[in-house]
């Protein structure tokens, strides 16, 4: 091997990957080149369908079921990954190339202890004995800043939190001290506050062992913290690649610029609500919970017509439970929910049809919120038919109006099934179904968190437009503060079932904050590549000062 190639770890040349759909092969990666040096971190970004994960897996010489690597060359440290034997590839995987998946919870085997799963790869590849591997695991758990590193490995996956599990998974990937780790959206499913811990742990450990990494994500601010250089992908093709600083400061391609500009949508401030108007929904001293545990502890807030109330908090803070109380799925133990000044029956089964009509809900996962066996006509038409008694021609016209409202061509879409739509379109159908009931109030439960940024932006704009047209009141449940900035008029910050802070948006983003709000706000990643380091230093200083 010549001197010049010595520190190149992975090269891909003209990589092409095809996927099978509807009985024919479609190209999903269209000739991508990639070079990765030892100890270097490459960020792969793009929307879903850009081929990020497929390229990541191809680095291991692996293609998902129904996919095949159809062209190009993959060289890993002098080994041609396409031509070498399956046995050889298997020897490399886990030992020299490791993979960290998006959902650690789904990737761990729930019936084995963490440390046993950690030891599996080193023992399999005869790198360490079981006792060595366990000692090593505890050492790595400590470096990953997991609490109780000596004991945590002896727990089962369901006994540790999501952020801890993701760190345990990274530690596991490190077990054989690989040359290359592929991180596939490791923090996407986590809260912002947990995300910071995982990011800093990953960054430290990659630096300590001088491991090369491919970091796949759709979040630019995150990749800015992690990567030395960034490659932007669109529909299986490279848009551009350069080092992180110059990529952030002066992207050359239009597509990259549009990605950068996504977070700029902000709707104009609404005039303050006049004193004495009756709020559309008023939650008063609600205490509710499952079994003997109170999830909500005496929360109150009001939502007015044509206003958006954002409810923010980490998972487990009681945001979704609040929605369940308002819709009547979970009758509260104490307190009540008023609708236009009148108390709603606590259980949805006791509510009148009109009361049910007035409060609609849009779900986070459009996939599970739409019955896969019904056509759009029936999905959207049913509420209109049921609540408003529309029939025949009238109903048909109404469905078409609704499809027009959500910017889908009626004649083309009316007879489709949900499976024939993209993620963003499904979410639009969820919105249309809520609108079909002609409600005054809509609960949006994390409606954009499963979507790409550009698509999510489209949904936010649509919701904003509809609010103006139909005078709707929104309750917007989210953990993403960028979304809050974009769409909210008022904000409620929740933590462990208590409202920590509430008020107009402008006040929320101005100091002074409640300490918890401060923590949330400061945890939102920023585009600045030094943001994470600065923040961690600052927090360390405060902690030692206090």
């Amino acid at each position, binding site marked *: 091997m010549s001197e010049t190639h010595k520190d190149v770890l992975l090269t891909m040349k003209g990589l092409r990957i095809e996927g099978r759909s509807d009985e024919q092969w479609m190209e999903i990666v269209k000739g991508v080149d990639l070079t990765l040096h030892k100890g270097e971190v490459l960020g792969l970004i793009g929307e879903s369908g850009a081929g990020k994960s497929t390229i990541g897996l191809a680095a291991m010489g692996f293609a998902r079921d129904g996919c095949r690597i159809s062209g190009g060359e993959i060289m890993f440290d002098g080994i041609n990954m396409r031509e070498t034997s399956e046995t050889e590839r298997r020897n490399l995987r886990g030992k020299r190339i490791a993979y960290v998946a998006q959902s650690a919870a789904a990737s761990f085997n729930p019936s084995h202890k963490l440390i046993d799963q950690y030891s599996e790869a080193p023992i399999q590849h005869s790198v360490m004995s079981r006792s060595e591997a366990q000692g090593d695991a505890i050492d790595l758990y400590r470096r990953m800043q997991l609490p109780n590193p000596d004991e945590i490995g002896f727990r089962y996956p369901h006994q540790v939190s999501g952020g801890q599990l993701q760190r345990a998974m990274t530690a596991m990937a490190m077990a054989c001290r690989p040359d290359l780790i592929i991180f596939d959206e490791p923090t996407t499913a986590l809260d912002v506050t947990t995300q910071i811990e995982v990011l800093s742990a990953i960054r430290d450990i990659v630096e300590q062992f001088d491991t090369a990494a491919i970091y796949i994500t759709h979040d630019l601010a995150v990749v800015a913290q992690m990567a030395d250089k960034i490659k932007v992908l669109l529909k299986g093709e490279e848009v551009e690649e350069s080092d992180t600083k110059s990529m952030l400061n002066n992207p050359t391609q239009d597509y990259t610029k549009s990605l950068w500009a996504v977070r700029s949508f902000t709707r104009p401030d609404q005039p303050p609500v006049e004193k004495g108007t009756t709020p559309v929904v008023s939650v008063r001293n609600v205490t509710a919970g499952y079994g003997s545990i109170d999830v909500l502890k005496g929360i109150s807030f009001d939502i007015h017509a044509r206003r958006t109330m954002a409810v923010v908090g980490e998972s487990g803070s009681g945001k979704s439970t609040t929605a369940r109380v308002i819709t009547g799925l979970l009758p509260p133990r104490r307190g009540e929910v008023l609708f236009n000044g009148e108390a709603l029956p606590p259980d949805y089964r006791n509510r009148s049809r009109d009361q049910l009509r007035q409060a609609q809900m849009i779900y986070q996962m459009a996939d599970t919120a739409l019955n896969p066996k*019904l056509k759009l006509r029936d999905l959207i038409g049913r*509420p209109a038919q049921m609540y408003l008694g529309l029939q025949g021609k009238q109903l048909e016209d109404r469905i078409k109006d609704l499809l027009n409202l959500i910017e889908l061509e009626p004649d083309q879409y009316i007879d489709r099934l949900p499976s024939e739509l993209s993620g963003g379109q499904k979410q639009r159908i969820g919105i249309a*179904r809520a609108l079909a009931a002609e409600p005054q109030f809509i609960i949006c439960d994390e409606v954009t968190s499963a979507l790409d940024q550009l698509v999510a932006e489209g949904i936010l704009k649509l919701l904003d437009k509809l609010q103006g047209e139909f005078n709707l009141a929104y309750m917007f449940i989210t953990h993403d503060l960028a979304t809050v900035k974009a769409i909210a008029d008022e904000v409620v910050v929740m933590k462990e079932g208590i409202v920590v802070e509430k008020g107009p948006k402008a006040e929320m983003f101005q100091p002074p904050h409640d300490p918890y709000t401060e923590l949330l706000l400061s945890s939102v990643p920023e585009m600045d590549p030094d943001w994470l380091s600065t923040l961690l230093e600052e927090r360390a200083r405060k902690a030692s000062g206090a």
Partner: protein
Amino acid sequence: MGFLIGLFWLAAVIVASMALGWLFRTIAIAISPHGVAKEFRTMPLTAGFGLLMILTYVFVAIFAPIIAPFPETEIVGREYQAWDNVHLLGTDNLGRDMLSRLIYGARNTVGIAFVTTALAFILGSVLGLLAAVVGGWLDQFLSRTVDVLMAIPALIFALLLLTIVGTSIINMIIVIAVIDATRVFRLARAVAMNIVVMDYVEAAKLRGEGLWRLITREILPNAMAPLVAEFGLRFCFVFLTISALSFLGLGIQPPTADWGSMVKDNATLISFGDITPLLPAGAIALLTVSVNFVVDWQLHRASGLKE
């Protein structure tokens, strides 16, 4: 040598069956409208053969009086006559024409099995879906009742019940349907349990949909795939149960032709190396295999399983 010849015949039969399946599929694609033809294209040869056989059975069952050369119960010759030009498959222990009885048997055995399975399905899936949707005490009550019924071995339980209520075709249908409904109940309930927790069912509940619409529009269409697969398997089991009961003398009563009792009546011939008594058994086997071929195809299609 004999083994090799056997192997040759086996291969020949398989090839012939596949050829039939291919022929059937080609014709089916050609004559059906566009949407249905697309479905048929996904059909493997095994399923084509299975479907052809099922259709043949149905045809034979419907037109039995026209096809059969002799009446079902009339004595038309000596006992145990060998195969000849008049009685193509010979006669049985009382001198009735074997081929005619085989044809009428399709009507009785298949018809009764179908009615029984359909009844078991209506009963089992309605109760199962209801238990999953309503939950609470209704679910507890139905599930525990089913547990008790399932604790008793099916065939013995059927014999016991038939002895109590007396043997008639109606009683047999009801008894087998109730026993098999317990199996369908468990499946329907388990499948529905996974669907009930979906957001779209929650959305429908919040919309204020009634129980009936919830079951028929939101849950049943999404539970169809496993239920259809189960229907095919259940049909075979019911079919075999009826034949077993008839063989034991508690099923379809003489002189009605039935494949199970036909095996029993002519069992003596087996000792003489005659294969005639095995023909009804072969008819049962062929139908069972055919139904399973078709069910496999449907299951594959509905669940998106890979090869």
